[in-house]
């Protein structure tokens, strides 16, 4: 067994020290009736050569990776550098544990500290944690946090716009079901944006949190000024989700509109699509709420010699100290993905982030204009969009249309009917900076040919 150094001779020597005859005697502490007396039923062990061959075979069966892709809806393909992988694959980052012993974890700790700073800059917030699993679970944590931060001052209720990513909403419901916090969803309004009138009415009874996403699930920039007003009316916190934070290269960040908690999906920053994970949730808030925040935080301090260094701090909020009274049950987070995002943002830099955002906007705008000129299609919502937008197929049912395009090796986007029955004839089309002109033209001509009955 190539991963285990022990030889038979060494095993005998060690058994003698322990004072037992054979290895199986070590398991006599397990009651006899529970000992497994047969081998596990698993496929035989493979050498590295065989394993690589088999896994490559499985990977090849994911034919979708070869297609021209206009998929988005919460996971985006972006340009990134091999530098990220070269650095995060370094043993010292990859195979280190959580930095509980700071003297031998300064690399990880400084990287987390820098990550927190980048997240604050990006989101326009004052304080960020070391990461949460993803934006969806982060949003659920944000809702729990709002209740905690305002305890006894606000109603146990969060009001969520239906334009928030359907999966994020589902995770919020799952987490909050037994918290005593009511979740009220305000149906999507005209134009694919939050129905501010109804949201206003919904918050009139008070709420600990008002939850919106921008750009929203339909790719449209929401008016966060209205969201801020609603949260103030509700006497609660404004919680903003960002599924595509590349947009913040051009858009005023939620912090600029007075958001109290911001959660973003960091996958867009150098993290592979990897069939949905691992990604990284960015989580940020205001200084005054820092003690209610979930998750780990790195802080600066000094060592015995007076040199600046970093440690995990505010641990008294966390489960290993506070147990059932902790601000969250989170322990392991997404540290290596946070490191990848930090490296990516460093490579992009101040100008690069803006440039990549401009490219996304330009590409998607080109596509939006091209699609809206096509017979059989329309762009039903007028609101401003960033790198994805909704398209309506007037003649061919969306499922049939997407399948016809698949036959041409094009993945044209994500259908909306399952989550929004009134948009059954619509799908979400995403164009990032990675789409080539020729793929974009291929999609347009395919739609032209397949879009009529």
């Amino acid at each position, binding site marked *: 067994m190539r991963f285990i150094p022990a030889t038979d001779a060494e095993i005998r020597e060690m058994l003698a020290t322990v004072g037992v005859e054979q290895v199986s005697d070590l398991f006599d502490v397990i009651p006899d009736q529970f000992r497994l007396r047969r081998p*596990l039923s698993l496929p035989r062990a493979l050498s590295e050569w065989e394993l690589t061959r088999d896994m490559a075979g499985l990977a090849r069966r994911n034919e979708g990776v070869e297609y021209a892709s206009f998929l988005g809806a919460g996971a985006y393909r972006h340009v990134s550098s091999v530098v990220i992988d070269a650095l995060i694959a370094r043993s010292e980052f990859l195979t280190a544990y959580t930095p509980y012993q*700071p003297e031998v974890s300064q690399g990880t700790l400084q990287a987390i500290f820098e990550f927190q700073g980048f997240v604050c800059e990006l989101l326009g917030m004052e304080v960020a944690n070391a990461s949460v699993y993803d934006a969806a679970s982060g949003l659920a944590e944000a809702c729990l946090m709002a209740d905690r931060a305002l305890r006894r001052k606000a109603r146990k209720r969060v009001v969520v716009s239906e334009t928030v990513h359907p999966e994020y909403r589902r995770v919020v419901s799952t987490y909050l079901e037994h918290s005593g916090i009511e979740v009220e969803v305000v149906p999507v309004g005209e134009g694919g944006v939050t129905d501010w009138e109804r949201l206003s009415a919904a918050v009139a009874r008070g709420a600990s949190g008002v939850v919106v996403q921008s750009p929203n699930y339909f790719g449209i920039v929401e008016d966060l000024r209205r969201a801020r007003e609603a949260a103030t009316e509700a006497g609660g916190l404004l919680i903003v989700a960002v599924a595509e934070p590349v947009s913040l*290269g051009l858009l005023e960040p939620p912090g600029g509109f007075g958001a109290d908690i911001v959660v973003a999906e960091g996958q867009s920053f150098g993290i592979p699509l*990897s069939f949905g994970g691992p990604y990284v949730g960015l989580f940020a808030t205001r200084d005054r709420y820092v003690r209610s925040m979930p998750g780990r935080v790195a802080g600066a301090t000094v060592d015995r010699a007076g040199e600046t260094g970093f440690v995990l701090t505010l641990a008294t909020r966390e489960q290993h100290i506070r147990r059932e009274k902790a601000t969250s049950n989170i322990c392991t987070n997404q540290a290596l993905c946070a490191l990848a995002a930090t490296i990516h943002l460093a490579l992009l830099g101040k100008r690069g982030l803006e440039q990549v955002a401009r490219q996304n906007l330009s590409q998607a705008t080109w596509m939006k204009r091209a699609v809206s000129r096509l017979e059989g299609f329309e762009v039903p919502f007028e609101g401003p969009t960033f790198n994805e937008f909704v398209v309506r197929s007037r003649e061919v049912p969306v499922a049939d249309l997407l399948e016809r395009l698949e036959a041409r090796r094009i993945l044209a986007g994500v259908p909306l009917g399952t989550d929004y029955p009134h948009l059954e004839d619509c799908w979400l089309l995403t164009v990032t900076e990675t789409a080539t002109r020729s793929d974009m033209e291929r999609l347009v001509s395919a739609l032209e040919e397949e879009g009529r009955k």
Partner: protein
Amino acid sequence: MTAKNSTPGTRGLVFREPLLRDLSTEGRRGLDLPPLEVDEVDPGEVLPEWALRRAPAELPEVSEPEVVRHFTRLSQWNYSIDTGMYPLGSCTMKYNPRVNEAMARLPGFADLHPRTPDRLAQGALELMYELERFLAEISGLDRVTLQPAAGAHGELCGVLMMRAWHLRTHGRPRTKVIVPESAHGTNPASCAIAGYRVVPVKNGPDGIVEPAQVAELMDDEVAGFMVTCPNTLGLFERHIGEIAEIVHEAGGLVYMDGANLNAILGEARPGDFGVDVMHINLHKTFSTPHGGGGPGSGPVAVREDLAPFLPVPVVVQEGDRYRLEYDRPDSIGKMRSFYGNFGVLVRAHAYIRSLGAEGLKRVAEIAVLNANYLKERLKEHFHLPFDQPCMHELVLTDKHQQSFGVKTLDIAKRLIDLGFHPPTVYFPLVVSGALMIEPTESESKETLDQFVDAMVQIAEECRAEPERLKEAPRRPVRQRLDETRAARNLVLR
């Protein structure tokens, strides 16, 4: 020349490295974008004025070589499994096979968008389906969700399923969960989010939870008993079968925290000793890297009658095809977006395929042998509160050293100078001044002997020059850091 059995720690050249923001020089950049093939759009033309960013995010401006050097220098300040033994108890810091990394990076996996239609993602779905079957066989349970992103996330998922099961079976969720005092902090924290009150139960005098104690706390308000087995003292909960009967008799469920599953791989299966729900830490038992604190993965295995409550979607097999099924009306919902930390699942799948049944059993055997070997060699130098055969880990204390004014923390920090990562310290809470040591199967006898040498040397230093331990560590890039100051005077960015 260094003798084979001396401790490995020594000095090396380390570099100062400031924050990136202090390296920033206007005009530098580290990533070139491909040129636009469409006309550039003026943002002001398509986005409303009020929505435009007023000031750019102040990210540093640095070139590629500066970024590479920055993070390479930072990495050199870290201890890692690849540099040395990492005996953190209940963390299972074993070797992370490099082939797993290569497999997760295959373009067919790494570039696959989660919303790819099922028929174009058959390889990924098949891998997930197989991994579920492997974990079901290893745990002795029936069905598995791969969705949770970490152990604590799995706990919450599992407790929510218990809750749904009670609602279905008894018409109400019940109100309490019994948790031993030796449990990880995540256990009570997860129960609290799921709306349960935690009732602690003491570990018996020999470190094992006693059936009578559980029976006394058991009533029809108890939804379940949440146990780590082997427990955090490294001991197998030998009354688990009897306790499971007591819990089941009163209509409760048994949840097992699978953090220490490494010790019993192929030797015993939780499903066979009465466990109804358990989570499995792929980043412990199944060799996926910790990455400085994640990403992990915390699949949850359940008995058949809890299967309707699994989060959506689940992977189903139809003939030789696989698809994601969402239509499950009794599901607890979703724990996170998409299907789980897929890249971590690839690594765990590769590990199980590399080892097979025999290899996994060998893992448990050597992990347990290594821990017992350390216990026998260290117990004459350090206080061993539970002197009995252990499983994958052992717990020592600083009781003998306290008379010299030396505490667990000092011992831990001195180990760093001798080239070892410290064990888990001051946990479990039920043992005062605990040093919890888990060597795993990855360490050779020579390394274990070096670790013993280091511990024995420290025990001697406690007697001879205890003040020296207070000054440890001296060799790493930073000496002992002031954690109190960090918490009082918050500087977080």
